[in-house]
């Protein structure tokens, strides 16, 4: 880290290799698509590189980077929303990675996630899929921990309600 701060690009490359997967996970939880998540990761690392002199060594690099990547993903989401405002409703902006999948739960889950707000969607993915704590999520998304907790509760309840009929069919 210190070498990277002194301008050693190979040291920063090592940081990229070490953190890119987790950074992608953060970005993917917030971004609507894999492509947007990838852009957010690239933007995030670029911002982090530019801001290296402001990084304090006593901080955890991962947490610092995740906040930057999350902001990049949120920015990309806002830009996409403005761009798509006239053409696409929000609830279809979550394409599946594998369009050929016939997994009913997966299909319904995509539809259910489309019913959630963007923040609720991010919170449930960051918590339930990626295992971040409420505090970490709050810090990443710039919201109080209690709000992250409440968003998670509402997101889970909404998904349970939207997918309830799947279990009643069993």
């Amino acid at each position, binding site marked *: 880290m210190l070498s990277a701060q002194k301008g050693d690009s190979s040291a920063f490359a090592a940081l990229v290799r070490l953190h890119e997967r987790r950074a992608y996970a953060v970005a993917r*939880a917030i971004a609507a698509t894999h492509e947007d998540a990838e852009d957010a990761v690239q933007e995030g690392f*670029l911002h982090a590189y530019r801001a290296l002199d402001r990084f304090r060594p006593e901080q955890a690099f991962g947490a610092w980077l995740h906040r930057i990547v999350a902001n990049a993903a949120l920015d990309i989401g806002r830009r996409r929303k403005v761009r798509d405002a006239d053409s696409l409703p929000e609830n279809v902006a979550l394409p599946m990675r594998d369009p050929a999948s016939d997994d009913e739960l997966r299909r319904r889950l995509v539809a259910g996630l489309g019913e959630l707000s963007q923040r609720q969607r991010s919170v449930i993915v960051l918590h339930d*899929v990626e295992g971040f704590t409420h505090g970490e999520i709050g810090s990443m998304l710039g919201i109080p921990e209690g709000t992250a907790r409440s968003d998670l509760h509402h997101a889970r309840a909404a998904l349970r309600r939207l997918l309830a009929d799947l279990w009643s069919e*069993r």
Partner: protein
Amino acid sequence: MTFDSRIGPNGREDDITNALRRLYAAPVDEDYWSDLAQRIMTRITNESEGDVWWQPLARLARVGVLAAGVALAIASIALTRNRTADPSLAYETLTDTPRTSLLQIAIEPDVNTEREATLRYVIAP
């Protein structure tokens, strides 16, 4: 329709979580990550190289901005002083001029009045 409700103790919750994990799964191909890291570093290198030619210009721009700031500050100070000076000058002009005129009237003899008096004396019966 069958879902594996045996995964974990909470059945359907775990089904949702597992479906979410599949949906948001990161690419597993190692080449993908190598390529992404490479692209990130390429962007950073390009930016750094861009900085090299831009740095002297950026330094000049900074000096220019600083000079403009100083000039603006000097102009503001001069303008403020000018504004402060203007009312006092106007006040002095307003108060001094009549005072001088009155003084002149008091000191200088009134030529017209003397002439008039002489004329009256001459033509008087």
